[in-house]
């Protein structure tokens, strides 16, 4: 039900839009390292003797150095030729990390050899260790990002809350979508437009609105509601909410799973603002309000209370009151 494949393929290629994290420019770093590989590889092939002297290794290792040079060039060309982001690029970057390991092992051997210039070998080892660290960080970041973009660049949120009411009561309230804006602060209205279809309007900054149509894909009374947005949605989304009976008469556990994809361009920025820096936080807070509505019948507020300043609440701290 939560398959990323339901989203357009071209989105899956966009590695830059991901889980609310600032783009760290791993690609740029990776490409820099690719050029570095090619440069070093060429030096190893063309002037192995000079290079050996430079790093303090004595004796005839020309063949070995040329082989290492070929490996460097292969890695570098691979990185530079790879146009796909994250995943495939990460694979090429990991080839650099592997090469670094070999280089470090050889430098270690050279360090123990009495023929070597100790000071230079130590300096060379330090330099390679530094590059290894950079390679490792870059590879890890790219791999992690590959995980995030497996959802096709969409943002996934999952939250759960225990509520002191029966699954039946919770399901009944939620299934009437017109109730949702009572606790989902960013929603302006949800209108049923058919048996399984509905029209959603969300508030966005500066008086703008974001709209979409959705349909229920699965409806199991008192257990689960699943939905997906229809073609042409401003915010493509797919999700489900489950109501599970908690043990020992402790009410029910509500579990929300959602995958949504902010649109590109200006509208995307608006939607990003709507969901905040931390999309999970928004859903978490919605569920907190859902709990209040179900357990006490309304949402407790401080907005409108007296204070010795112009605003009744604090802009800095009372975030939920100020949205």
């Amino acid at each position, binding site marked *: 039900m939560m398959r990323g494949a339901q989203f357009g393929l071209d989105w899956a290629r966009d590695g830059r839009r991901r889980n609310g994290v600032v783009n760290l420019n791993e690609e740029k770093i990776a490409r820099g390292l690719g050029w570095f590989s090619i440069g070093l590889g060429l030096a190893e092939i063309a002037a192995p003797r000079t290079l050996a002297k430079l790093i303090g290794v004595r004796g005839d290792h020309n063949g070995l150095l040329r082989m290492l040079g070929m490996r460097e060039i292969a890695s570098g060309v691979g990185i530079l030729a790879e146009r796909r982001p994250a995943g495939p690029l990460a694979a090429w970057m990991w080839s650099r990390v592997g090469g670094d390991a070999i280089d470090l092992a050889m430098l270690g051997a050279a360090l123990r050899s009495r023929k070597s210039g100790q000071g230079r070998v130590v300096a060379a080892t330090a330099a390679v260790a530094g590059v290894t660290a950079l390679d490792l960080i870059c590879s890890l970041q790219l791999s992690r990002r590959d995980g995030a973009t497996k959802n096709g660049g969409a943002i996934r949120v999952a939250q759960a809350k225990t509520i002191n009411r029966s699954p039946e009561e919770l399901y009944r309230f939620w299934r009437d979508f017109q109730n949702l804006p009572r606790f989902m602060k960013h929603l302006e209205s949800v209108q049923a437009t058919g048996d399984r279809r509905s029209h959603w309007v969300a508030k966005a900054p500066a008086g703008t609105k974001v709209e979409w149509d959705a349909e229920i894909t699965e409806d199991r009374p008192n257990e689960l509601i699943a939905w997906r947005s229809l073609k042409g949605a401003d915010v493509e989304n797919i999700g489900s909410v489950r109501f599970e009976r908690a043990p020992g008469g402790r009410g029910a556990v509500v579990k929300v799973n959602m995958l949504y994809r902010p649109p590109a361009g200006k509208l995307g920025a608006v939607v990003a603002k709507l969901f905040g820096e931390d999309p999970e936080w928004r859903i*978490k807070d919605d569920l907190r309000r859902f709990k209040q509505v179900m357990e006490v019948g309304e949402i407790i507020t401080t907005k409108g209370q*007296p204070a010795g300043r112009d605003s009744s609440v*604090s802009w800095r701290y009372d975030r939920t009151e100020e949205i």
Partner: protein
Amino acid sequence: MKANCWYGKQDLRVTDVPDPKILNKRDAIVKITSTAICGSDLHLYNGFIPTMERGDILGHEFMGEVVEVGSEVKNLKVGDRVVVAFPISCGACFFCQREMFSLCENSNPNAWMAEKLFGHSPAGIFGYSHLTGGFAGGQAEYARVPFADVGAFKIENGFTDEQVLFLSDIFPTGYMAAENCDIQPGDTVAVWGCGPVGQFAIRSAFLLGAERVIAIDRFPERLRMAEDGGAETINYEDVDVYDTLMEMTGGRGPDSCIDAVGLEAHGHGPQYFYDRVKQAIRLESDRPIVLREAILACRNGGTISIPGVYGGFDDKIPVGALMNKALKIKTGQTHVQHYFRPLLERIMKGEIDPSFVVTHRMRLNEAPKGYDLFLNKEDDCVKIVLKP
């Protein structure tokens, strides 16, 4: 109306603010007849509790007359005389239903912030930073009481304000601290801090059957008040607390230890200096001097009960002693609503008259002066009641 507002560290002003309104259906508006300054208010005064905002109205110990009720408040009417519990509690969630009112899941609109700091949020509290909801407090002429049907307790007998006001916080807080000690016949209870909560902890320990109570402080007037309550006393400026406690308890240590001091403990020697410095440069949020001492002094298998307020992250807590001595730790903000009725009954039976703790009475507009007096323990100040 007039209200005592916080504007920064040791900067309080009684200013004109708008009157409170009903904002939720279970709110009530109370015209305040008496309100007190709590020891924990001094932590706000000294700027140790984060997320305070200029203009916040302080105060969480208050009582008065109901002047307006929301549409869903069924058990109160205009004209009722009520004492208000300092935690704000819904009465419907998992914790409220188990009478753990200070852990209410529905009363803190800023729960997200407390979750980041504590993992989970406690209940909202009147006038005690935005971390616990940013609710306007009760050092004012009027206050809005959310969930008034749970938090405002009707007083129908002819008691004076001073006899029942402390049901809002310090009496239940001292009582819960003693109850947490699970006092057995023959037990000795040591109480660090003879401020208002310590005083109620001493008397509550006796009410709950303690054989002996040993009170620790450095101010003669507070130690005298403890002695009036039946406690033996230790002035920690004169003697070593651990050695004296061992001497007094035959080397075994007190069966239970109550830390009624909390995060701004005073002490002496390098340890006190260490905590002052770390706290000043924000490397630790509290000064857990009493807690360390209590853990070391407590008898094996005994109980450490902590009604004193702590805010964040503390250093050098002897966890090794805690584990190897098999100590129990009981703590928490007070479940005030749980104690309203039983403690009012004790007052009615004449087992205790809470007004003993009051040393100063002032007008609301003298609140800033009152804080200063209370902080510096001038004029033998133990407890101040303000009248709007």
